């Protein structure tokens, strides 16, 4: 059996016309001698009746003061994919191709018990194989699985895989079935070298490496999820990103050794970030303050970007949507240090002190045992975004940073901070300059000619 896994995202299954185009891709695969396994996302994107966000809002609207439990959130979210699967299977049947809709659990996707961000621990694909052997096309719900039976649940719980979960489902099933390929169908004809909103003529990459596609997604591009690429890489499964709405060849994802030459691959941008710069006359206390701040950021699951450390200061960026949470956690935080002479730090987020900080300071000054009261101000730089150059064996060349800085500085774009890894160089720039920065770097690194 020549198995191919074909995954269709929300826009590919959003209406009957799109579903028919997607179903014809599946039919073409059957006619070409493949035994396709289909994975689908929920129908449509935010705002549409059965989209994931719409379902989530149904729960939130019941009572904004009562947070839904993760177990029920997962159950609710799964409805979107279940509906989509049934409708897609019916669409295939209408074209004369027998199909069987399956939940993630029915397809044998077993996960850990982390609701909302479960990881796949095992696949028992017997029912998928049985359907294939009977000449039926399995249509599997993306984004979901089932946890193992436990003391709390005799049959296991429905779980969801988190962001990009349907891509992960596709690669995982392909790995379990020894598929010849995974095809991720979307509404663009492959992976572009930049966001077409910022670079209208950004070409589609014909080939890229697993690491590149995972990094391009990590740095903000909405292509496929890094988890999906990691599974495909681990099991050596050819991965393609294609359009449901065209016959363009799309992007083929290949092992690094197949693209041996150094090259820049693309320019990405993340969402909105806020940079926090912690400054104080720390002296030898810096490690203790730093450690406490990191501990709290970890405990409250704040995503840190561009962590940056200097002898007497440190800083990091956080997503703007997490800033209110960060302020709640840190503003007015009291860190007493008792080794040697007692002294106490109060964290103040932002230049202007809040009532919390004033109240803490006043209270501590009236108490004994806290020693000197010192303020650590976290200066905020709001309205930032991160622009990243993604590259394959390219960044270690002398002068790469110079080229990036030259093109941005000469265009009067402020570089607020930088960060790099073996696969990318990122710069933090004002949000207003994001589009210009992406376009300039795209031109500087000649990405219009990349394929």
């Amino acid at each position, binding site marked *: 059996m020549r198995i191919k896994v074909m995954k269709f995202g929300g826009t590919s299954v959003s209406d009957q016309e799109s579903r028919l185009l997607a179903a014809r891709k599946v039919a073409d695969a059957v006619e070409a001698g493949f035994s396709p396994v289909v994975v689908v996302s929920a129908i449509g994107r935010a705002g549409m009746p059965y989209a994931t966000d719409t379902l989530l809002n149904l729960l939130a609207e019941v009572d904004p003061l009562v947070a839904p439990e993760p177990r029920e959130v997962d159950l609710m979210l799964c409805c979107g994919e279940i509906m989509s699967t049934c409708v897609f299977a019916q669409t295939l049947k209408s074209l004369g191709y027998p199909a069987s809709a399956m939940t993630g659990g029915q397809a044998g996707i077993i996960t850990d018990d982390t609701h909302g961000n479960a990881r796949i621990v095992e696949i*028992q694909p017997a029912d998928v194989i049985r359907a294939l052997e009977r000449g039926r096309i399995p249509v599997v719900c993306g984004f979901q699985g089932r946890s193992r039976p436990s003391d709390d649940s005799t049959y296991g719980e429905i779980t969801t895989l988190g962001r990009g979960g349907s891509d992960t489902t596709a690669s995982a099933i392909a790995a379990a079935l020894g598929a010849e390929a995974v095809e991720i169908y979307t509404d663009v004809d492959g992976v572009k070298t930049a966001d077409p909103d910022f670079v209208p003529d950004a070409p589609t990459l014909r080939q890229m490496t697993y690491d590149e596609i995972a990094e391009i997604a990590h740095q903000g591009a909405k292509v496929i999820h890094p988890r999906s690429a990691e599974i495909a890489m681990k099991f050596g499964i050819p991965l393609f990103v294609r359009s449901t709405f065209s016959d363009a060849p799309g992007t083929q994802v290949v092992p690094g050794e197949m693209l041996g030459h150094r090259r820049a691959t693309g320019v990405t941008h993340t969402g909105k970030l806020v940079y926090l710069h912690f400054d104080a006359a720390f002296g030898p206390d810096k490690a203790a303050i730093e450690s406490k701040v990191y501990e709290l950021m970890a405990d409250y699951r704040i995503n840190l970007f561009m962590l940056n450390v200097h002898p007497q200061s440190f800083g990091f960026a956080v997503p703007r949507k997490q800033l209110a949470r960060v302020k709640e956690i840190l503003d007015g935080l009291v860190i007493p240090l008792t080794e040697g002479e007692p002294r106490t730090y109060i964290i103040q987020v932002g230049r202007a002190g809040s009532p919390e900080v004033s109240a803490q300071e006043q209270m501590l000054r009236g108490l004994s045992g806290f020693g000197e009261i010192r303020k650590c101000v976290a200066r905020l730089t709001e309205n930032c975004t991160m622009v990243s150059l993604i590259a394959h064996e390219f960044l270690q060349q002398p002068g790469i940073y110079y080229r990036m800085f030259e093109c941005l500085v000469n265009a009067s774009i402020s570089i607020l901070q930088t960060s*790099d890894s073996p696969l990318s160089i990122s710069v933090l720039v004002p949000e207003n300059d994001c589009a210009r920065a992406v376009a300039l770097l795209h031109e500087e690194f000649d990405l219009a000619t990349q394929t």
Partner: protein
Amino acid sequence: MQPITSIETARGISSVEVSNGHALVVVSGMHEDDSAQRMLDALRELKDADCSIDFLKISNSGFSFIVPESGADAAIRALRSAGFAADALGGRSIITVRAPNIRDESGLVARIAQLVVRSGATIEQLGDMHSSVQVVVETSRVEEAAGALRDCIGLVEIL
């Protein structure tokens, strides 16, 4: 048919590797009003001297970066000959912490940073990619830092 396991790498830290033999170069004495142009000039000097740099970080008074220890002298020579105040601090190590899907494991970068600082090491630079975090520390403290991270391999509870 046997179930297929090990599809995904377990969340959290999956491995820790150490690479020694690096140097931290600190360029200082820049003023805020012309620091962008001065930094550009300094980067041009490094490019012309064929120096490949990593972990570039901007500070209030300049910037810093990491080079292989063997390349530190060339970088310092290039910068000083162009009038920049620059110093190299050898004995730096890079710890590579493999942790899959790091952006979706909210808080993991902060936890890694906390573990390193709590071990007694000073983080000098930190960078991340889709599957790992790289941390630069003094070689004299690298074993403590790497040990603290290795103790957490496979521990989901660190999040």
